[in-house]
């Protein structure tokens, strides 16, 4: 293994073991599986009316679920990453090893992303099985589900990195947890509510046609939703700001969800470099 891969693998394996022991793997898998099954059951009813296969309908529901749940799981796993090490006194120790700060973050990132991919894979996989059981035509929705899977991981990666940055800025686990919940509320819940209020007040004016698409692309959660809904044939099944999806090219949404993980990880590295152990 190369000089970089070896410590990343060592740190990642250790961090994954901690996630297993802390039951993060169990909790996230159970959460995703439960919600996916509930949505599959709820989504199987209107299939005949909409005229699309059962899985495509489920993918639209899973998109709306994932946009809340994936960032939340990512932040819950990452808020302690730096602050916890500072509190235990292990950060200063690890930093005296021949390991760089970005390597430390990469190791944690690899482990947490693996946990997320297991949880998201289990949930979406169950949804696919459930859809295929009730509707043999559901194979038509598999590309959309695959797209939802990897874009969910990109969304998770963004919020993992944001969680590390908050953890490094807060320096205490309690404060980091508070910041993480605040960021989740702001980016995932309040951001959309604010935009909706602005759209209503604007009444179809310049804000709605010019600023809104860019503001949606600027938020990773909205870009994720837009990308999946715009790329999916089940856009009509979506509600809320999904209607704006028609005005935004899929490519722009894709670029946003590809760039966000890189930007957020860079932010996390900068935040960790500023920590004086």
């Amino acid at each position, binding site marked *: 293994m190369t000089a970089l891969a070896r410590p990343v693998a060592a*740190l990642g394996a250790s961090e994954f073991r901690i996630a297993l*022991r*802390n039951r993060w793997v169990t909790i996230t898998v159970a959460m995703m599986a439960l919600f996916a099954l509930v949505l599959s059951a709820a989504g199987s009813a209107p299939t005949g009316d909409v005229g699309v296969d059962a899985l495509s309908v489920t993918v639209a529901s899973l998109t709306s679920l994932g946009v809340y749940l994936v960032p939340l799981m990512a932040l819950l796993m990452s808020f302690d990453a730096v602050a916890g090490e500072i509190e*235990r006194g*292990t950060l200063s*120790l690890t930093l*005296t*090893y021949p390991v760089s700060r970005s390597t430390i973050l990469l190791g944690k990132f690899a482990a947490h992303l693996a946990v997320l991919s297991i949880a998201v894979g289990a949930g979406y996989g169950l949804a696919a099985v459930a859809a295929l059981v009730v509707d043999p035509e559901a194979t038509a929705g598999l590309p959309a589900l695959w797209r939802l899977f990897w874009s969910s991981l990109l969304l998770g990666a963004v919020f993992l990195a944001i969680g590390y940055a908050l953890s490094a800025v807060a320096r205490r686990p309690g404060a980091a947890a508070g910041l993480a919940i605040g960021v989740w509320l702001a980016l995932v819940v309040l951001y959309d509510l604010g935009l909706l209020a602005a759209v209503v007040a604007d009444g179809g004016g310049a804000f709605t046609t010019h600023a809104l698409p860019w503001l949606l692309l600027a938020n990773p959660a909205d870009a994720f939703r837009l990308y999946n809904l715009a790329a999916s044939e089940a856009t009509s099944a979506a509600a809320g700001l999904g209607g704006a999806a028609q005005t935004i090219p899929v490519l722009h949404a894709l670029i946003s969800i590809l760039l966000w993980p890189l930007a957020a990880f860079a932010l996390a590295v900068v935040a960790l470099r500023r920590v004086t*152990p």
Partner: protein
Amino acid sequence: MNSLTLSQVTKTYDGVTALDAVAFTVAPGERVALLGHNGAGKSTLMKIILGLIPATSGQVTVLGAAPGSQTARDGTAYLPENVAFHPALTGLEQIRLYLRLRGDDPARAMDLLDRVGLGQAARRRIGTYSKGMRQRVGLAQALIGNPRLLVLDEPTSGLDPVSRRDFYTILDGLAAEGAAILLSSHALTEVEARTDRIVILSQGRLMANDTLAALRRRAALPIRLHIAARPGAADEVAAQLAGGRRNGVMVDLTCGHDDKLARLGDIAALKGLIEDVEIIPPSLEDLYSHFSRRDGQ
């Protein structure tokens, strides 16, 4: 070449001076104790040596290289004060991780844990360990890769007396193989017997840097003589020697270093009245107070 050289190391935080022109060296195989009150600048100095924080001014050379450089990190081991490790990992898993981070063979983890007396508990989670056991995990990781410089911050806090002795035995072995050791401690009596040189910091300034014997000479603190008189002779002994009586049989005297033999001669002249004599040199606590308060505190 010295393993560690500090010259005129100064650190200021927002105008407050944490370290003021500190200079000393540690040679290979030398065990140096760093003493000072809480807040004297010991931990700050250690973090500068480790390259975790930069000095405001002055020069630090670690194993011939800059602090925090690859050479310095490869050859330096650190034990932070009160390190806790993740409670969900076992001691064995934690040490295997640190071995892999040093590019060492993780299979050596069990040997290291055996060496610090944790072999039995190696497969238990660190969350179930006592403070002393966690401290041993910290020591085990500091032994990885035959370090040429060990920087140990309060390494024996939380250890019982037997564990402390084992700990210093391990350090003696490392020093005999040529490792330079810089350790801070509050337990002055153990430092007294187990280190070669003592550095005293007070309010960020270096107050003393010498062997214990030399510090004793320089401080010229009085030596105490405890004389046990024969039954009923205590008053007479006290009168003859102009000393104070401590109880019915004991007489206490103090004298300067240079008067010691003369005073012993006086005592010997009264040998019919005396059971025993004990000479008590100034303790490290006395020396420490003397040097750390010299600045008129």
